């Protein structure tokens, strides 16, 4: 394979009117190296993922053989003493805490993005956007400690109110009953919501800002309100990017470890109430990995990790399908 081959493949046409000199061949060999480096980088990422999945599957083999796939997924027993393990409470905990984070985080992110892109006067745009992005720079253990030491005591004072008002509603009231401890599934969901805000809101803001001014100005000229412009002009125009941003946030919420471990209460018993303690897959891993002394115990923990990868992949797949579908409906390529 020679240099000009590569140049053609990369879509670069050799420029004919350029004077033939050493410079040109130097540029071509540099381009050849760049091409190789880019291919290498891409393969490195794919290989790392592939190798990780293989290593995890290999290490969880003992547990897969012992409990099977369906048996492990549906069992609520997690008992290191009798060495019986099941993932059900943790899968539910992971999905529920992330759902709470999305229910709370998505509308707020949308609000922030609309504020920055549409409403805010220029002098306030920068500080607000900067503050939101700084949230992403805070290490998750700090969120965990803040949640445990600062947020949970305050929230414990709000919980009796939640208990009395939301808990009294028939049906969904079941979700809001329990002792006011300040920690539990709901607290974990709220902390997660704060943690994923910067990711979702900055993506939404960026795409809102690229909506052509002609579109939004025409809408305003026809008498549309800010809400109507945001909801009927900007959002449809940027829909697939917004959904991409939401799923990026969701992916982060699903895998968050330390912050959740501190505030979720770490109970392996499933509870109907969001005010009660629970556990997620990452929190169990963080808690029990260091002292898992038997092979089956360790293998079961790694098996949980494998399931988390499967859950995350499923979520990504759903995102891709959803975007394709929306794209087709709008007649535009996704």
């Amino acid at each position, binding site marked *: 394979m020679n240099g000009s081959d590569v140049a053609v493949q990369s879509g670069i046409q050799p420029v004919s009117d350029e004077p033939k000199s050493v410079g040109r061949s130097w540029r071509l060999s540099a381009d050849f190296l760049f091409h190789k480096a880019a291919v290498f980088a891409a*393969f490195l990422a794919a*290989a790392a993922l592939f190798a990780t999945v293989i290593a995890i599957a290999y290490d969880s083999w003992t547990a897969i053989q012992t409990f099977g796939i369906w048996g492990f997924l549906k069992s609520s027993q997690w*008992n*290191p*003493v009798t060495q019986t393990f099941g993932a059900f409470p943790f899968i539910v905990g992971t999905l529920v805490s992330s759902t709470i984070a999305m229910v709370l985080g998505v509308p707020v992110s949308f609000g922030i993005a609309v504020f920055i892109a549409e409403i805010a006067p220029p002098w306030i745009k920068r500080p607000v956007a900067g503050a939101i992005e700084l949230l992403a720079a805070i290490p998750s253990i700090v969120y965990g400690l803040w949640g445990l030491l600062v947020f949970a005591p305050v929230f414990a004072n709000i919980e009796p109110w939640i208990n009395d008002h939301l808990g009294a509603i028939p049906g969904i009231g079941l979700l809001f009953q329990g002792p006011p*401890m300040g920690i539990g599934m709901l607290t974990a969901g709220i902390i997660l919501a704060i943690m994923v805000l910067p990711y979702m809101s900055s993506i939404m803001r960026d795409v809102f800002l690229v909506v052509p001014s002609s579109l939004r100005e025409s809408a305003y000229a026809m008498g549309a309100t800010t809400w109507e412009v945001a909801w009927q002009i900007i959002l449809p125009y940027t829909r697939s990017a917004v959904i991409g941003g939401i799923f990026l946030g969701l992916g982060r919420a699903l895998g968050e470890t330390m912050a959740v471990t501190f505030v979720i209460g770490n109970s392996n018993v499933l509870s109907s109430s969001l005010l009660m*303690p629970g*556990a997620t897959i990452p929190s169990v891993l963080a*808690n029990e990995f260091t002292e898992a002394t038997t092979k089956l115990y360790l293998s079961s923990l790694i098996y949980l990790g494998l399931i988390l990868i499967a859950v995350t992949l499923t979520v990504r797949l759903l995102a891709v399908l959803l975007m394709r579908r929306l794209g087709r409906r709008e007649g535009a390529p996704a």
Partner: protein
Amino acid sequence: MKSLKKMGAALALTVACALVIPAVRAQSGLTGAGSTWVYPLVAKWSATYQKLTGTEINYQSIGSGGGIAQIKAGTVAFGASDMPLKPEDLKAAGLIQFPTAVAGAAMGYNIPGVKAGQLVLSGPVIADIYLAKIKKWSDPAIAKLNPGLKLPDLDITVVHRSDGSGTTFTFTDYLSKVSPEWKEKVGENTAVSWPTGVGGKGSEGVASYLQRIPGSVGYVEYAYLLETHGSYARMINRDGKVVSPSLKGFQDASGHVDWATAQDFYVILTDKPGPDTWPISGCTWQILRKNAPKATNMEVMKFFDWGFEHGQDMAKSIAFGPLPPSTVEAIKSYWKKELGYSI
């Protein structure tokens, strides 16, 4: 041809990635790994030991499970575990173990109107609280132990460690000894399937829940309670005496063990007799490989022997009880017997 090359490259990369397994590598001096609970003691001893002898002890507190795995793999000179290995497991893996120091756990609580040290609890009552059979502080079983103390009609919130921990092993082992129902339904381990309650990560997690949740009760390492001035309950020990947690109480627990006859020091210090004995006392074990180079094992033995003899005040200063001389003698003859050499 090209795609084949690419595949080959990808495969090579995959293999390379799979081979890079993080391992604790031995550096100059001695390397140990394991229990987080014994870490402060080993760290304190090794700092002074290095100044005196120049031998560097690099101890990594990766947890008992990791410590056992590393010593089995032979990547470290010694492993440390909060839960002793059974003699048959030691034999199968070609390992030996010996105790390091004694300590204990105490019950912290947060009951409005009840001051530190006022509450008295017994093993069976704690087991019933942790089994969710006793749900309120005004329960007659608690009142019976505390005549004259006014206990509120408040729900009990049970707090336990969420992370695997030697403290949990010591605590659940004690409950298994005093409550047949606990032994049958829950059992003892560094992590168990808790019937009720909330889990705090680490001692600081449990302590912060205790501080905040009115009506809470939870077990915490004594050293940590001392440091944070948390309130702890007195307990009724095996002899029926009411005792406060103390170093002497932990040492008395080990004093009532005939270490010389216990095979591989497989003895757990909970619920031991003696008038001053603290019931929830525990221990940490060091694990060595029989077939490790003699020089390495000698270095490890020298270090711990130095600690047993000269590190007693250092141990006491961080709430670890030094082993009595008779136990140290028993350890030395155990080394001689198992390894064929001793210091």
